[in-house]
């Protein structure tokens, strides 16, 4: 049982790798292309996605659920397929919530939903594949048995709640450039994701202590 070996510290390390991916993307866009999220959101989001995607897919493929039946390559392939599917779901969700649909917003929306897919959908796709039961379990918290579940669920929920909160400044009449779609939503999502990644090791630590006291 490899999955049981992952502790809070390992989880923290893995999460910091993901965060490092994001930071690299931000640094790259800043130094190489001298573009920031505010001035030109679409290219920056593209660079962020490109940098984050390999990190997330490789990491979570290594954490895949059924090690015996599923090879590493297969898990990576699941992640790659999951990326556009998750992006589609995220894009649909934001349009329902009121994201602009004009032609000039399309590139930004596409890259933004890719990034959101990396935060939410892709990790779970790598780990679970198409197992319906696992998906239901992770959504319901009914059996928080697994440590990987925390690693998947807490940062993903953090990203979604962060993006939801990040949309609130958009209607205000401050006329700041960052109020445009999808800039503040992206900031919110990244912030929520980072908070979730910090929070999940804590939960894992508590969970393991709980199990230990139970077995004793």
């Amino acid at each position, binding site marked *: 049982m490899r999955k049981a070996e992952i502790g809070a510290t390992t989880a923290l390390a893995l999460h910091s790798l993901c965060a490092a991916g994001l930071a690299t993307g931000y640094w790259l866009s800043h130094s190489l292309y001298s573009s920031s999220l505010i001035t030109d959101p679409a290219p920056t989001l593209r660079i962020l996605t490109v940098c984050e995607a390999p990190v997330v897919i490789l990491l979570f493929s290594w954490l895949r659920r059924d090690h015996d039946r599923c090879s590493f390559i297969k898990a990576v392939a699941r992640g790659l397929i999951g990326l556009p599917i998750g992006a589609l779901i995220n894009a649909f969700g934001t349009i*329902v919530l*009121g994201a*602009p649909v004009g032609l000039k917003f399309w590139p930004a929306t596409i890259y933004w939903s890719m990034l959101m897919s990396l935060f939410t959908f892709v990790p779970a796709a790598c780990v679970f594949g198409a197992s319906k039961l696992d998906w*239901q379990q992770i*959504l319901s918290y009914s059996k928080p048995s697994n440590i990987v579940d925390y690693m998947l669920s807490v940062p993903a929920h953090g990203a979604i709640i962060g993006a939801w909160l990040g949309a609130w400044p958009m*209607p205000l009449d401050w*006329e700041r450039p960052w109020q445009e779609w999808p800039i503040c939503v992206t900031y919110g999502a990244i912030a929520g994701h980072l908070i979730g990644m910090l929070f999940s090791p804590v939960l894992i630590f508590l969970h393991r202590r709980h199990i230990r006291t139970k077995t004793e």
Partner: protein
Amino acid sequence: MRMRMRLKAAAAVVLCLHCLGVYLFTRGFLLTRTELSAFSLPSDLLQAQAPCCSESDLPSTTDQDLPGWTPPTVDRVLILIVDALRFDFVAPSSLFETKQKWMDRLSSLQHLASTHPSSSRIFKAIADPPTTSLQRLKALTTGGLPTFIDVGNSFAAPAIHEDNWIHQLLHTGRRLVMMGDDTWTQLFPHHFNHSYPYPSFNVKDLHTVDNGVAHHLVPWLHRQDWDVLIGHFLGVDHAGHIFGVDSQPMVQKLEQINAILQNVTDIMNSQKHLENTMLIVMGDHAQTLNGDHGGGTSEEVETCLFAWMPRSLPSSISSIFHPSTCGLGLNGKNICTSTMQQLDFAVSISALLGIPFPFGSIGRVNPELYALSPGSWDRQWLPASFYEDPSSDLKTWKNNYAHVLCINSWQVKRYIDSYSATSVMGFPSDDLHYITKLYNEAQSRWSDSKNSSCKPENDTIDEFSDFLLSFATLARSAWTEFDLKLMGVGLGIFIISIMFHLFVFERVHSLSNVYDNKTQKSSNHLQIYVAFLLVAVRAVSFLSNSYILAEGRVANFLLATTAIGSIRSSLVYGKIKKHDLVFLILIILIRFGIEKGMSKQAATNPFLNYDSGSDFDLKWLPSLFEGHDFVTLLPEISPMIILFLLSFLSCKYITCTVHSRYIKWVVTVGTMLSYSFIATFWLSERSFAPKMVYVIGLSLFVLNFVLRYLGILEKGETVQRLRSLALVMVSAWSPTILILLGKQGPFVVLVCSIAGWSIISSKNKGLLDDCKMDPISVMQWSLLAICLFYQTGHWCTFDGLRYGAAFIGFDEFKVVRQAILLFVDTFGISHILPIFSLPFLVTIPNSSSSKGRDKTVIFLNLTQVYLLYGLITAITTTFTVLCVAIQRRHLMVWGLFAPKYVFDAIGLLLTDVLICVSALYYC
């Protein structure tokens, strides 16, 4: 039976509390003034036997074509309005603690003030809030105090309907020229002989208006065919809004204005025909350092008025008046400034030009401004015997001024009398009594002084001034000051009613838990918390003007959030059902409708910065189908198709649901007839068809109540009975609402019925049994109602009312009838239909567990649904009230917060009334 009484009693109590709260808060907050339509006429003074002029007094009683009440003292007036002119732009910087970079820029005015102290003057002009351009221009021309509700105002056009000096000038044959801000031409569409309006909306454009005025001003100064010229510069206001006062663009703007003014004064000095012309440079209001205005802080109200005559005067006037504040000007000479009320401007300029004073003016002829004109020093009214008297010029002037003030007081008294006789809310009688006493004393002293040989002008002037100033104070307190005490009491009553509401709801809720005696308490509580969290988010958002403007989108956002949440729980308990997805797609459709409504609103609302081009950019869509005939026909045909679909669906549903055979027959026929009348109306525009629809709707509504009380609808099981009652009620109302909504109607009604169906089907994810009240569903129902309000092209301002709807089926205007139609159009889809269809939430069709349920439980649930719906509306409205009270000095209080309050208050009272009606009908 006790349960049924409970909803009725609770609803009635809540309705009463809300009525009281709304009444008190409105009395304190919405300052009301009645506009009188009377106009002053030149002959008024003689006809009314005004005490000021005995026959011998009037200089030209023989001369019947005397245009005014007083002889004109100047030939022409040149008024240059600099929008948002602060006092410290004009006054010498030595009057202020520190010299800022925007001070002393209008050096040409300071130069005049210091070199011609007798013929020029700088005033600190105090404006009355609201300090927005439209209200200020209205006040400057009518001499009144405009408020939020000027009763008698026509809603559509801002044109001034009260008496004003522009009107008086026109009727005494003077020639008017206007250039600059196009607000003037909106207010006075037909008054100017020549006008050069420039658009005032684009705040970012600093130069178009000013350059336009500068371009036209100089040529007109060389012409002789004008009497009053108004130039309105906007650049200073716009520079303030964009960059703030402490900025380089503001300094440049002031220097540009200074150059224009220098040019104007040079021309006036050189041209012979401008010798007896008064130059007035003034602001309509001031601004804060950030460039904001609208409120009542001293920074916003302290504007400036500068007046100058090229012709010099017999003697200096400063000796007569109270010492004013003086400071050193740029050239080292002393400059003195005085203070005046902007309220006095209208009557002062009327006295200067010798026209009848505007009927509704409540100002006093300002002595210093009046003394600037050489004509006021002429011996106008003095009897011949007086000429031998070697009296000083000063004495002559005082006599003249006392005479003008007498006429002024008579005119204000006349206004007070006719206002008290006709207005909705008059003045307190004690104050009126005191004012009348002051007036009588002043008049008696005036007539005494005329009969006796001695002329104590000083006393007379003081007494008249006292009367005029007291009345202005009284009018200010009635028309511009909020009654905070009343507002507080009103708000308190709202909060008490929420407490009561919560108490009743909690009682019913615990009662239903006892009846149910199942242990789902915790999950139900969680849902209540989620619902209240959503209400809280919505309620807090009203604190910001941006969120009020975007309310439709916010409601849609929250609705989408609940829909996504319900999909998530669908996933947890099984798989996604199709109604969940349908609901999401409907939310997208509703969202596009809301955005379309907002882009329409943005065309008329200067506050709404809604870039429809970038956000709702689907223009590429039709181009895909270009060249096909059906695309052009689609907007014509699709309402018909949807209408047909709707009538089919509703008839089918009625036949399935309603069990009583006669009712079924009557309702089906009624619905079919209504829908076919709607189709005939759209095809042929015959006006009898809508009338028939209204008649059928009304008679079905009445019939329902009659049958309900005769007990004919009592048959069947409780759930089925409730459902058929609700269905009959909804089918009575929907055709009327549909036809009023116009061609978008069928689509909207279809969307709202499918959305309602989705909400009903998506509630209770296996946790609760079917008839249990689900707070989230009620919340969704209420959010959907708000979305529908905005989707149908309404918004919370008076220009958002769809006036066209009031004339569907009628050509001529009758107040009550058209008001009812407009009311039904505005609140039909967002209040009437959702509230009458609430019973569907507790009676789900085809559910196994709802059969054979205890009657009491179902009514308990129904009571809870209605109480919760009322509570949600009450909480949001209470927050609107609170936010309006907090933001009462906000820049947009009259443009945005007050209309929002009016709409919400009416919506709340309507909700309460509808809940009472539903309680009578369903329980």
